């Protein structure tokens, strides 16, 4: 589980100021905000625009272009399951259906108890150990229903 801070204008401003000094700073700033708060809060968008002399529309465009950036806080745990071809060749589709049924969520959704967010990922580079997943930043290869089920049970308990 990853602990995130509560959004505050002061913390947001500090994170933005810290990352704004480099060339092409917009994406590094958004990453830093998401690392801090777990997502990119809407209130931060005009602040990023101001710091980089961009329009709000431009920053909004960047936030929404990249799959990584969330616009709402995630669940306590984030599970990314690889949907790409190599994982499909090892039974990925059936495994994902199993996970979705077990969690009762679709892609990009969070369980009603706020514990688990399920996200698709298109390749973790673990194609020789498929099917694979990343759970709270930790990688898992060679998954099957039993192993993934155990991981899900652990997340629900913590």
């Amino acid at each position, binding site marked *: 589980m990853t602990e995130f801070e509560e959004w505050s204008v002061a913390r947001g401003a500090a994170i933005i100021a810290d990352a704004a000094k480099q060339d*092409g700073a917009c*994406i*590094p700033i958004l990453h830093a905000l998401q690392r801090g708060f777990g997502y990119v809060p809407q209130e931060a968008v005009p602040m990023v625009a101001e710091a980089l002399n961009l329009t709000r529309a431009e920053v909004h465009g960047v936030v929404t272009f*990249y799959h990584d950036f969330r616009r709402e806080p995630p669940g306590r745990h984030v599970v990314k399951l690889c949907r790409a071809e*190599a994982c499909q*060749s090892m039974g990925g589709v059936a495994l994902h259906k199993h996970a979705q049924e077990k969690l009762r969520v679709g892609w990009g959704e969070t369980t009603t108890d706020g514990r688990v967010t399920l996200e698709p990922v298109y390749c973790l580079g673990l*194609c020789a*150990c498929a099917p694979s997943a990343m759970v709270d930043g930790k990688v898992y290869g060679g998954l099957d229903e039993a192993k993934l089920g155990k991981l899900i049970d652990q997340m629900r308990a913590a």
Partner: protein
Amino acid sequence: MSRAKLYIPRDAGALGLGSADVEEALIVELKQRGIDADFIHVGSRGLYWLEPMIEVATAEGRIAYGPVRVGDVKHLLDAGMLDGKPHRLRLGRPEELPFLKRQSRLTFARCGIIDRLSLDDYRAHGGWSGLEQALSLGPAATVERVTKSGLRGRGGAGFPTGIKWNTTRLAPGERKYVVCNADEGDSGTYADRMIMEGDPYTLIEGMAIAGVAVGATKGFIYIRSEYPHSIHVLTRAIARARKANILGVNILGSRRDFDLEIREGAGAYVCGEETAMLDSLEGKRGQVRAKPPLPAHSGLFAKPTVINNVISLASVPWILANGAEAYAAFGLGRSRGTMPIQLAGNVKYRGLFETGFGLTLAEIVDDIGGGTASGRPVRAVQVGGPLGAYFPRRLFTTPFDIEAFTAQGGLVGHGGVVVFDDTVDMAQMARFAMEFCAIESCGKCTPCRIGSVRGAETIDKIVRGERREANAALLAELCDTMKFGSLCALGGFVPYPVMSALTHFPEDFGLVAKAA
């Protein structure tokens, strides 16, 4: 007793299979037995069906055991693992394993062997001699050596690296950049990841050589966010190289400056396209740029920029150190040198196989890969990532060569080979290719943005049995439009998997009766 020495693979692949847990168990167990041990963190040798593969230093050299699970640790130590004694998991000397013995490891010569962050280990295994060569040769002669080696871009496009470098070298400009494309998004590929996590200094050395060659003082490595372990290892490697004056001001006392910075991607596949990557590095949406201007003339922040894939750059130190002719001696036709073939998906011997171009697909899949992991017949093989063609068995005589694959309506791409057994539904794979393109399209050009959505819908209609023949013809026409009308390889190449599935496996689309 002298200290034991154990080599633990710590790349994401080995970690995903539990190498950190095995290391933890070894630490605890050795402590209980009162044995002192050094744990050397290495990359993976690339034999993933044997990972976690733990090696121990013995009187007869390094002896490998694998795949080691946490539950095996006690028994292995009881059996005398630290002295290389027999056990059912004992693999012997790793370099004698047939999968490794048959390879020509040039770019991956050190990967899985050396302490990945040790500058001393790197130098002891021939490191920095390529950079030293480049510094003494100077820019023009360095570029010439790369050109003569015949090295072509390993990211997929296969453009001659030396020509790209020379264009950047000759482009006027005070400030130039080297950009490393480490956005390895193709399914079935992990060679970039293995090098970054197993031998990061090779990439740093290759980039420094590129900097010397084209007159750039700054390099960016654009690493996808899906590779946090690569970011972690390279960040530390760059810091150490800077401290050792291999990066920074007046590198190695040469009066040349070169420094590196890592930038993290944000989950957009299209940013692996070089011009989309430049926009992303500039902090924008990762949208494809129209060419010209070429990045070599006007690239990052409108400055002359050389963009190369990780493996292209990581191959350069060997070329500089050993000579262009030695590299060009490997390969076939116009595909010179070696290629790290990445066997992935449903294949028995899953791993990285570096070899000269020219093996046939049958040799790669059946002979080296050993057929499927499931034990069922091989039905299709996708070569070159999600935009690569699906090959049926009757095309397995195709040699692994850039031109030969193009002639068969496919691509070598970044060298990924994903194997599927006979349970695969090729109509669904074709649909997935279109769906993936729709998800990942940057949206700039219409054939890709809209064609991919309509393509998936049309495949659904064919599968449902709606005017099958007419819709198949429509799909072919749509693919033609996407192939010739898209701005970049995303929309332009998605017809490869779609049309190869339709052409070679029409029975899965209900277009011909299924064989009994």
